[in-house]
């Protein structure tokens, strides 16, 4: 089969590889009908996630049709149409049972690698480095899906692929970020980053009762979507002197009640700290550039919540922890517990409350993946979201 494989920094290729097979009794094989490149795949593309190996198959946003099931999978049959959440979860450990799915104990065969870095490790992920399990990803014609009795969600026939594909990651991730803000009536929610997760966080903030949504970015096409599709007030950080002053003015001197960092480890900025991060990251002294996070911590109102769906991998410097402490902030973060939200969000799509396909800008074939990674990374051609058909 064809698969998108990682061969090194900015080097992904479409290769012919053997088809996947059932390895464990709860496995299923899915024939992929639609897959996407995620913003977090760009961290792999740019070489910022350790423990990638040459030949690894990428991709964690995919859906398709069941073509084979293992002996212990009783609730799915060949021909079922499913979406597959990006965290691989067992559904049986303490964390899964307590709805903290992305912290699952039992799916990562290389958990010791994450434990060495983070103390404890969570769920394995598709196509996202060996420390996250080394599972072959979904930018391919076929994928092996572990614990298929738990993870895949059946999709009713009437709904097209493009409407439901983003239930695998970015829609629940944005929703998780907004839910983590514990939004109260009257709350102002500020979202750093108008990429796909940021846009879904804005949509979700409205669903959860926000009174205003403010978006911070610099890319015109993305700011346009935030304004037009997500009803956000937009701040272009390259056009203002100080984002803090602007947000403070917009909120009557209080600051936003909830701040969402939907940017993560590859933030852009034009202040001294952003330059400092850039230099250290290039020199490999620091993994992550945390400009957006610093700004969110600084701008958030007293007693507010900073929610972090943006991905961080290693160590970050110069975090204004005094500000977080001094203002009594609540910090919430992590990989989204997709399985907790996916059915309720599917119901919203069925009721036509949201059509997640609004942010798709590029529809291509799997063969176009190498070029599309570059286009998406460089935000060229107004690229916001790429979907690929094998």
């Amino acid at each position, binding site marked *: 089969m064809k698969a998108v494989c990682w061969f090194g920094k900015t080097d992904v290729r479409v290769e012919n590889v053997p088809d996947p097979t059932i390895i464990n009794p709860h496995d299923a094989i899915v024939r992929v009908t639609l897959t996407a490149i995620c913003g977090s795949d760009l961290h792999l593309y740019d070489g910022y996630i350790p423990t990638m190996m040459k030949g690894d*198959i990428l991709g964690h946003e995919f859906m398709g049709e069941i073509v084979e099931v293992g002996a212990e999978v009783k609730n799915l049959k060949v021909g079922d149409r499913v979406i597959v959440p990006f965290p691989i979860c067992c559904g049986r450990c303490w964390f899964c049972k307590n709805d903290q799915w992305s912290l699952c*104990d039992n799916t990562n065969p290389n958990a010791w690698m994450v434990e060495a870095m983070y103390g404890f490790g969570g769920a394995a992920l598709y196509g996202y480095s060996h420390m996250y399990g080394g599972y072959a990803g979904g930018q391919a014609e076929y994928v092996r899906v572990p614990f298929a009795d738990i993870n895949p969600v059946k999709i009713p026939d009437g709904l097209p692929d493009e409407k439901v594909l983003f239930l695998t990651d970015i829609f629940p991730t944005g929703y998780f970020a907004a839910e983590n803000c514990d939004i109260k009536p009257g709350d102002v929610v500020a979202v750093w980053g108008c990429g796909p997760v940021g846009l879904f966080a804005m949509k979700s903030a409205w669903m959860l009762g926000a009174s205003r949504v403010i978006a911070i970015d610099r890319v015109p096409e993305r700011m346009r979507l935030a304004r037009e599709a997500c009803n956000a007030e937009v701040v272009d950080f390259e056009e203002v002197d100080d984002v803090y002053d602007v947000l403070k003015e917009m909120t009557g001197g209080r600051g936003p009640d909830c701040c969402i960092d939907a940017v993560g480890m590859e933030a852009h900025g034009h202040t001294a700290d952003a330059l400092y991060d850039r230099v250290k990251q290039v020199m490999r002294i620091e993994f992550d550039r945390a400009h957006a996070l610093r700004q969110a911590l600084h701008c958030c109102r007293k007693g507010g919540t900073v929610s972090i769906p943006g991905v961080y991998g290693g160590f970050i410097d110069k975090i204004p922890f005094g500000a977080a402490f001094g203002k009594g902030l609540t910090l919430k973060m992590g990989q989204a517990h997709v399985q907790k939200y996916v059915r309720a969000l599917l119901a919203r799509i069925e009721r036509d409350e949201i059509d997640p396909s609004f942010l798709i800008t590029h529809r291509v074939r799997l063969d176009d993946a190498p070029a599309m990674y570059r286009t998406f990374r460089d935000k060229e051609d107004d690229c916001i979201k790429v979907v690929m058909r094998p």
Partner: protein
Amino acid sequence: MQSAEILSPESQNSHSSQNVNSRERWLSVVIGSAVAAYGLSRRSIAGITAAGIGAGLVWRGASGYCAVYDALGLTSVPESNHDTSNVSVPYGRGVRVEQTVTIGLPPEEIYTFFRNFENLPRFMSHLQSVTVLDAKRSHWVTKGPAGSDAEWDAEIINEIPNELIGWRSIDDSQVDNAGSVHFKQNPAGRGTDVKVILRYDPPGGVLGAMTAKLFGEDPAHQVKEDLRALKMLLETGEIASTKGQPNGLPHRAKLRERLAEVVR
């Protein structure tokens, strides 16, 4: 909790000039010769240094005296005046490993699974087979690194249903060892803490254990991973694996990988 330590004896026989046991002396000569030969072939300062270290190891093996052990107060020679007839690993000898994992099942279920020793190879990657001989005794076969297989008979020496099982190797074991597993239920549905304590006399002595650690055969890591596999197996019915899945490695790299597996 994790620990793997090499124990030093409480007291040592200072009259004896030999503090390296026969198995380790043999290993010392073999490794020393190899290092010396490699060092001489390099024809550099580093090579000469390596040759010197190699020669030292050969002498250590031939004489049975190790200055480093002496300085550290270690010995790998059994103390003959101690009666060790009913102890598999005498106090103060060998390697001790202690690891704990939480499993989301009641102690009875985990105990019952563990008590049937024939289940052990299902999650202990270095065990080839365990055959139960009678109510107390069983026969264990391991697959060691680089084909160094070992086998022994073990007997259960202590047992409290749903709480603990203790065992030790008997007679002429190739690897003298003793172990125990403890089950403790946590409150409020937080599962059962399963603690394994293992002590064994590694082939190649203390030096062998250190060498093995250098090459990634760390016993603490091994036991920890085995307990993780036990948890996966009991909680989910399978052990997470990606073995045999496709990737885009070029053909040559794949061959190299297969070759590495054969050598291992």
